[in-house]
């Protein structure tokens, strides 16, 4: 059975709804939650592995609710050979995945917190942030 990786982005109005339960119960999908986060503004981000015959219908259901769904075929990595720890990305990154480790001032990347927005890929002067498919 093929699986599909998707990124879900919820507004604050949906973040408290049991949507994953619905995907399992009503659409008979096998769900593996790879990443889930609710920010202080109560907006949610979730990365799922979805498997099941009704996967497309399940995704349609999410979209009807107002969840933004993107397929995830990529991840962001920090090329440590290229990164010089300048820091120019760290206040551009919206999720805190890129940050400065103080007092050393080294730039670190926590991929678990990355929401794959690509802002760092554009902003990095050394082109050290790479997209992997």
């Amino acid at each position, binding site marked *: 059975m093929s699986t599909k990786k998707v990124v879900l982005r919820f507004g604050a109005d949906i973040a408290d709804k049991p949507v994953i339960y619905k995907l399992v119960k009503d659409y008979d999908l096998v769900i593996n939650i790879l990443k889930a986060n609710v920010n202080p503004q109560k907006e949610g981000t979730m990365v799922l592995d979805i498997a099941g015959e009704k996967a497309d219908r399940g995704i349609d259901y999410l979209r009807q609710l107002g969840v933004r769904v993107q397929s995830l075929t990529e991840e962001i990595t920090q090329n440590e050979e290229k990164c*010089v720890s300048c820091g120019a990305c760290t206040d*551009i990154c919206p999720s805190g995945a890129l940050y400065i480790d103080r007092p050393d001032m080294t730039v670190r990347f926590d991929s678990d917190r990355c929401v794959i927005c690509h802002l760092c890929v554009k*902003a990095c*002067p050394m082109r050290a942030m790479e997209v992997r498919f």
Partner: protein
Amino acid sequence: MAVEKTFQEINERIKAGKAVVVTAEELVSMVKEKGVTRVASEVDVVTTGTFGPMCSSGAFLNFGHSRPRIKMHKVWLNNVAAYTGIAAVDAYIGATEVPEDDPLNSQHPGKFRYGGGHVIQDLVARKKVVLKATGYGTDCYPRKEIETEITLDDINEAILFNPRNAYQNYNCAVNLSTKTIYTYLGVLKANLGNAHYSTAGQLSPLLKDPQFRTIGVGTRIFLGGGIGYVVWNGTQHFPGRNLVEDGNDYGYAGATLSVLGDLKQMSPRWLVGTSMIGYGATLTVGIGIPIPVLNEDICRFAAVGDDELYAPIMDYSDDFPNLKSNNLGFVSYAELKSGKIKVNGKEVPTAPVSSYPRAREIAGTLKQWIQKGDFLLGEPVQLLPNAEAGIKANALKG
């Protein structure tokens, strides 16, 4: 008795393996602990470092002569034009030149993924670079075009010559407008969304000898991973002080250096091609300068820490582009490095554009070179103009 040392005495100690060398970062805490008088007598050399984008950089190359000969009229390296309005097979590849078919900012913000700085990094990485040249043909240089591959080892000379590097101090850039702007100091978010700065603070070479008491023509330095020299002041060398009407003195700013060295002994770790989104291509350069502790005053200047070094906060949406001399106040490097500052009453996240960890590594490397006796101090044949020279910037009319 006040300590007085000469370059010669310190060099003798370096040769004998007896010189006491510390980085500027180490000196700051040493002087806080032991006091300047004692440290000045103990320490011989203070090493500094900086690693940031420096646009006024480039390299003179001599490609050697082809058979038959060509007098190059236009030259491209990996499709990036080099300036060849000098002798037949000499050219200067500048850090900010971009390929002629680059879309630039036609789709704003442009990416500027490759440029002269990247060519220089590819050369020092010993990668093959495509050389294309055209000529108009002369009796002694009949050939009209050539396309070949070169490496740094194949060509005759490669001299890194950067007419303006190592800015003494720099603005902390913010954006007061309501839209994101793309600057040479990085991406600045609207409504004071962030603040970028680009100086190594307490490690930064020209903040540690702010009156040019030791740095001048002939100072031997760490340049791009190899050995280079200060050859003159830089362009736009306007050494001055940030004195404010309220009586506060926010220290030194405005000085720059011209530096030169053999590209062949440099390294791609310390000369890095750089792409500033929406702005252009450039080169990030590693520079480290040793400061001999000739007396207590020099030691005192070199021991000033991040909490006593200041950057002016400048708006890059209006004040900077329109050459207005306003600033939004001063902020210390200690505050900038903490990750947030206050501007107009608002808390603003900060980020550097120059690498402090790499600056520290440069100061550490230079310290090792000197400790091993490999690197002697170059005594300047002429010191550079300092704030007392009163050099003022000319503006371009029109």
